[in-house]
């Protein structure tokens, strides 16, 4: 028997004024960004004032929304019908980080931090920085109160869960024990204070100097002491964002394709959200293959094609039947993958979006996906 899942009622979520944040997450290549953009457009056209924060959109999708520059500022999307408003922005993680520094430090200290080589490389290349800054930006947008719905698409990371873990990890580092070791010389007024500390600290400092070299260590020390003076409590900030994600106005939408890896990641994610007490709205299964002739099974179609072939008749019909059989097999396989998820998570609502031949190129394409999501 075919399993069924509760239906994910997209419009109910979009129309609910209490929904203030929607987070689209899932593994790479499943269509998170497109889903986020389609939800944003639909919400706007249903009367809400929406901003979509995307991290790394494909060029075409960015163009579809009229985003031409990566300038870290929400831009109004033109061509959105009716009462609502849609803004979209691409995250520039380095600029977001720079802005935090500039906002919290006096000009001299800000300059010290911004020109520090360790800072420059941390702010532009550490993969966790992207997650951290995405969450930071989310917090900023929420505090600004300019939009009544924020839709964010999570960064493409090693694992779909990284954006939950990375801020905590960065926070742990910036507030942690290692930082205190690194900062010790600066606090002691510049002379080497390693000697003043206990032996464990001394060994660590020695090892770091040996491996990294003295100059690098000095860069890191300068960076962390300047940063600490600017604003302590990176971890505290991470915790605030974390609480925001747990709030009742937040809805997580997990996106997957009907393939084993993507479904597996989606399952992990659903379990993890439950552990963290973060509100899950449901699962979107993207690029599902269906047939307009579902009553004709793969087995019957193959048998009929074989029959025609053996008689040497109706080549066209047998080729079409083979094509159909392939389609039905694919649909059956996708159904099995979905059922694995449904068996493990029978209460999670699901919405389906059929596979489309071409990628989204414009607002009409996004609108169509929105319609499919809500149908």
């Amino acid at each position, binding site marked *: 028997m075919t399993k069924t899942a509760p239906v994910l009622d997209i419009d109910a979520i979009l129309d609910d004024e209490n929904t203030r944040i929607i987070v689209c997450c899932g*593994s*790479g*290549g*499943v269509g998170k960004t497109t889903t986020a953009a389609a939800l944003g457009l639909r919400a706007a056209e249903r009367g809400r004032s929406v901003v979509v924060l995307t991290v790394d959109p494909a060029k*075409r999708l960015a163009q579809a929304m009229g985003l031409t520059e990566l300038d870290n500022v929400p831009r109004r999307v033109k061509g959105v019908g009716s009462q609502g408003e849609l803004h979209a922005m691409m995250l520039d993680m380095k600029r977001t980080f720079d802005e935090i520094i500039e906002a919290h430090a006096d000009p001299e200290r800000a300059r010290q931090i911004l020109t520090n*080589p*360790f800072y420059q*490389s*941390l702010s532009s*290349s*550490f*993969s*966790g920085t992207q997650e951290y800054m995405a969450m930071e930006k989310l917090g900023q947008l929420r505090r600004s109160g300019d939009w009544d719905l924020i839709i964010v698409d999570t960064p*493409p990371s*090693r*694992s779909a869960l990284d954006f939950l873990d990375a801020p905590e990890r*960065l926070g*742990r*580092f910036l507030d*942690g*024990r*290692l930082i205190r070791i690194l900062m010790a010389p600066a606090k002691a007024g510049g002379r080497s204070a390693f000697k003043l500390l206990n032996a464990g*600290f001394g*060994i660590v400092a020695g*090892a770091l100097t*040996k*491996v*990294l*070299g003295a*100059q*690098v260590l000095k860069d890191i020390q300068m960076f962390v002491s300047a940063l600490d003076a600017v604003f302590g409590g990176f971890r505290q900030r991470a915790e605030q964002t974390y609480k925001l994600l747990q709030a009742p106005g937040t809805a997580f939408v997990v996106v997957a*394709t009907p*393939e084993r*890896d*993507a479904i597996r990641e989606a399952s992990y994610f659903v379990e993890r959200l439950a552990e963290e007490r973060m509100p899950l709205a449901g699962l979107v299964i993207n690029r599902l293959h269906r*047939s*307009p*002739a579902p009553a*004709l099974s793969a087995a*019957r179609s193959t048998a*009929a094609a074989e*029959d*025609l072939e053996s*008689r040497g008749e*109706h080549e*066209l*019909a*047998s*080729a*079409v*039947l*083979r*094509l*159909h059989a*392939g389609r039905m*097999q694919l649909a059956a*396989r996708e159904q099995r993958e979905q059922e694995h998820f449904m068996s493990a998570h029978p209460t999670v609502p699901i919405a389906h979006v059929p596979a489309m*031949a*071409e*990628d989204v190129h414009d607002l009409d394409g996004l609108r169509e996906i929105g319609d499919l999501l809500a149908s």
Partner: protein
Amino acid sequence: MSARDTDWDGVRLHVVTGKGGTGKTTVAAALALALAAGGRKVLLVEVEGRQGIAQVFDLPPLPYEERKIAVAPGGGDVYALAIDPEEAMLEYLEMFYGLKRMGKVLTRMGVVDFATTIAPGLRDVLVTGKTSEAVRRRDRSGRRVYDAIVMDAPPTGRITRFLNVTQEVAGLARVGPVKNHADLVRGVVASPETAVHFVSLLEEMPVQETLDGVAELHGAELPVGGIFINMVRPTGLPKDVLDSALKKRFDHAELALGLKAAGLVGESADASAIAQALAEEVTEHAHRTRLEKRERASLAKAGTPRYELPLLADGTDLAGLYELAEAIRAQGAA
């Protein structure tokens, strides 16, 4: 050594990248099997801690240890290693600094955590470094331990940065041991003994990312390998049928007759309804085939060898992996 000529003779490190969802890990695994075929010894490494190799081969999670996981057609062994950056770091400290006993202290102090998750680029240097070590490793008689190494690498969007380790650690180390080590790794990765292969699908976004990735690698002077076009569906229908479907002149009546002849439908009305539905499928298929043709042509612009791997109807199981390995060998990629 086999006498067969392949497109990548002389390459010892095969780096496999691809956009999420393209089947990168599966292709890396099949390539390892194909390279091992005929009695060679190949190491398949994983660098992102996702245990993708274990899943593809249907095995329990792999430890940080080289172990045999499969036998290739005609003899030959595939070993696997899941590189854990923390373990690699402790090994590195021991190897180069004799700091093994420091490991615990460093771990407790958060230094290992710092090095493997925060410090820009260090994590990548550690995993590419471990891989390079396996590439260079020789046994007592001076022979290479592995004939080839296949790396299931990070996705296309991050591959250049990942391999361009010297650049990556620049902020952290312009001189000193980390820099020296990064330079050594870069030497292996940028050598003619390395090829960076891309896995793509015949869809717009993966193709665009592949082309961007190829251009980026060229820019960074890293060796571009081949393009593996994965999950290719058979065209199935003759060209004139596809053309007529695109022009909305598909012959429903003929199809309906065929359906009746096959005994699938009794009544003419049923036959026509089913023929209508199937015709819709044909039109969709024709559109997709046209798009695929366009994407194929785009990939050709990359100017590097391309290989096509079939969509496996039953999903990727072990038998499917061997099927893909065979396709890889048949096309001369291994």
